[in-house]
């Protein structure tokens, strides 16, 4: 094969390896930012593809397969890896070459999987990643001897360093290896791994002493939990504190754009569709971008460093007690910013039942979109006075609403566990606690960009579509000339609101609330704008509008109605974006319907109790 012939077709590579082998870092180093992230059709497994050019000019297409411990798959992720390696995946051509990645400090585990892959008889190259870390720990690997034993090229790489992949690129550029020679039938892979290790590797100690020292503190039963609490506090605080200015900036930009359009276009349908529909809907969701980016920045840092699995280790038993799994911790934490990244983060939970339960309870964590509604109602109904000298009654109410969500989630998960078939379907943990690692800035930034793009793509498609549909509902049919009341009352949304009032009357909602809940489906906080338009309130500016609205609500509603609406908001799943992400992540309308039904029933029950208790007490 000469090089001119070779460069005609792009070489297709698949990166295969155990979780935590530094595969994604290697993928980032090889491809730079030339990556495409998508989902496998109908599944929630991420498909990462990248491109690069070899020194000879040959183009390479590389697929970053999900990490797997074995070809006997136990999760949808591992099933994709298995299918692609076997050449059985429907959407994926069989790769020309399997580029196996193994952590040089963890060869006992990783070599076994390499041997399992060798059985497939495909052309293979083994990258011994993190060669620098191995050297620092005094691990000596005779790559030549290993290559001789395995029968395919073995190349040392350092994925976190700039030129750490030069040797690998050179090897890929040369003559490619032929199909790996499969092991004799019935070979014990563990025995073969031990034999290879004895022949080619000398390892002074099985563990890294620094890691063991850090873990003594971080995994300590008391100190470890204190450190975890501190980490969570810092993350939580930063999400709210740092995102503020950026969110305000986006909000101002969105507002200015709306202003500009309404002043440029003549008043009418088109201007209303663009300003009240598209800009209000998409803009209302875009405001959460800074929070989501900051949250994912921390999650990526914690993930890259190896802290997340340790947090799962610390909390597993506690979460199991509540019917969840230790892996549910990150989704729940993320949901305080927005349920969407939280539900997306449930992908790390391999068991489908655990995963659904986490998706069910994650939206009960008070997301930041509820805050404007809480702020409006608390401002209107809770007196601003001190309790016990240090606590503000309004602040205490807000804290109570947060706690109501958390307690509700724990109770629901606990009940679901009692009802679930516990004995027959055992939940497995078997979680690897990887070595501590210094997060690499480039890898964190690439991960952040990926998350941000996913969110923006949603806002540009799904949220846009829903905003337009909701605008149609609350605009048409247009009222006749002599209609004296707010226009929204005449629209589909108004009629639906009136019809819903029958259903919501037992929990103290008047028809105005029901109407406002409909535009609130686009994003929860839009309900505030909805209330303003049903009560036909328009102030000089936004702050002014809210002030007038709060006074109007105070005069119109009873305290019981206000509390009932707050209770409804703690649990109700009325956010189309969340509904859509649940649909996508579960790939099932039935599961989505059950999810929405359960949360609505819970919200209704809580609002009913709150309404009647408050009415009885006041």
């Amino acid at each position, binding site marked *: 094969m000469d090089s001119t012939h070779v460069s005609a077709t792009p070489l297709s590579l698949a990166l295969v390896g155990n979780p935590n082998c530094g595969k994604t870092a290697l993928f980032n180093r090889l491809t730079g930012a030339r990556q495409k992230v998508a989902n496998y059709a109908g599944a929630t497994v991420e498909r990462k593809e990248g491109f690069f050019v070899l020194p000879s000019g040959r183009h390479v297409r590389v697929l970053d397969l999900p990490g797997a411990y074995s070809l006997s798959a136990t999760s949808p992720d591992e099933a994709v890896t298995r299918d692609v390696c076997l050449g059985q995946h429907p959407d994926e051509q069989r790769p020309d070459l399997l580029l196996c990645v193994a952590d040089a400090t963890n060869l006992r585990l990783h070599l076994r999987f390499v041997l399992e892959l060798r059985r497939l008889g495909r052309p293979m190259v083994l990258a011994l990643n993190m060669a620098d870390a191995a050297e620092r720990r005094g691990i000596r690997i005779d790559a030549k001897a290993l290559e001789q034993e395995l029968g395919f090229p073995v190349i040392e790489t350092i994925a976190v360093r700039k030129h750490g992949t030069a040797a690998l690129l050179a090897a890929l550029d040369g003559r490619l290896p032929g199909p790996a020679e499969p092991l004799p039938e019935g070979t014990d892979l563990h025995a073969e791994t031990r034999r290879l290790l004895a022949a080619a590797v000398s390892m002074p100690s099985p563990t890294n002493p620094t890691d063991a020292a850090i873990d003594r503190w971080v995994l300590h039963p008391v100190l470890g939990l204190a450190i975890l609490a501190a980490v969570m506090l810092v993350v939580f605080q930063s999400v709210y504190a740092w995102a503020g200015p950026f969110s305000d900036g986006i909000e101002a930009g969105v507002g200015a754009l709306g202003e500009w359009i309404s002043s440029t276009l003549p008043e009418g*349908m088109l201007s209303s569709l663009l300003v009240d529909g598209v800009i209000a809907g998409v803009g209302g969701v875009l405001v959460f971008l800074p929070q989501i980016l900051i949250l994912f920045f921390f999650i990526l840092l914690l993930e890259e460093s190896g802290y997340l699995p340790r947090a799962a280790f610390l909390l597993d038993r506690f979460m199991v007690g509540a019917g969840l799994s230790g892996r549910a911790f990150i989704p729940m934490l993320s949901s305080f910013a927005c349920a969407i990244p939280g539900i997306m983060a449930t992908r790390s939970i391999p068991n489908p039942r655990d995963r659904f339960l986490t998706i069910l309870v994650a939206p009960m964590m008070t997301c930041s979109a509820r805050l404007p509604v809480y702020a409006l109602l608390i401002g209107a109904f809770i007196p601003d006075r001190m309790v016990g000298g240090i606590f503000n009654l309004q602040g205490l109410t807000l804290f109570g609403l947060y706690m109501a969500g958390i307690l509700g989630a724990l109770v629901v998960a606990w009940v679901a566990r009692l009802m679930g078939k516990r004995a027959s379907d055992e939940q497995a943990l078997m979680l690897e606690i990887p070595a501590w690692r210094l997060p690499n800035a480039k890898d964190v930034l690439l991960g952040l960009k990926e998350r941000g793009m996913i969110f923006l793509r949603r806002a540009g498609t799904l949220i846009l579509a829903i905003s337009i549909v909701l605008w*149609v509902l609350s605009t048409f049919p247009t009222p006749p000339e002599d209609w004296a009341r707010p226009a929204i009352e005449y629209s589909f949304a108004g009629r639906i609101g009136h019809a819903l009032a029958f259903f919501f009357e037992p929990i103290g909602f008047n028809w105005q609330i029901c109407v406002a809940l409909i535009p609130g489906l686009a994003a929860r906080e839009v309900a505030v704008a909805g209330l303003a338009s049903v009560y036909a309130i328009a102030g000089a500016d936004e702050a002014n509008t809210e002030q007038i609205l709060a006074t109007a609500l105070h005069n119109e509603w009873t305290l019981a109605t206000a509390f009932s609406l707050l209770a409804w908001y703690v649990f109700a799943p009325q956010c189309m974006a969340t509904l859509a992400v649940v649909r996508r992540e579960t790939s099932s309308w039935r599961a989505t319907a059950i999810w929405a039904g359960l949360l609505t029933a819970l919200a209704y029950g809580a609002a009913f109790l709150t309404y009647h208790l408050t009415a009885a007490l006041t």
Partner: protein
Amino acid sequence: MNLYALLEPAIVTLLVVFGLWLSLRKVAPRLSMRLGEASRKAGLAPAIANRVFGPPPARNSACGTCCGCDKGGSQSKPMIHRH
């Protein structure tokens, strides 16, 4: 009547149709797949049907249209999928 007043309903209709189409594709992908299947059978050019309703589902994609999928997850043995 000026030009803007004439164009406005057309643009609004276009945007609303676009919004409904986008909702169909994003909110109800399976319904969209089925509609695509039906329209291809009814004689719509595959190229247009693919553009409007999305390409036909891939095999083993758990799309729910043929019930022949290896559902992954709990499966531990590789299965060869036949459509």
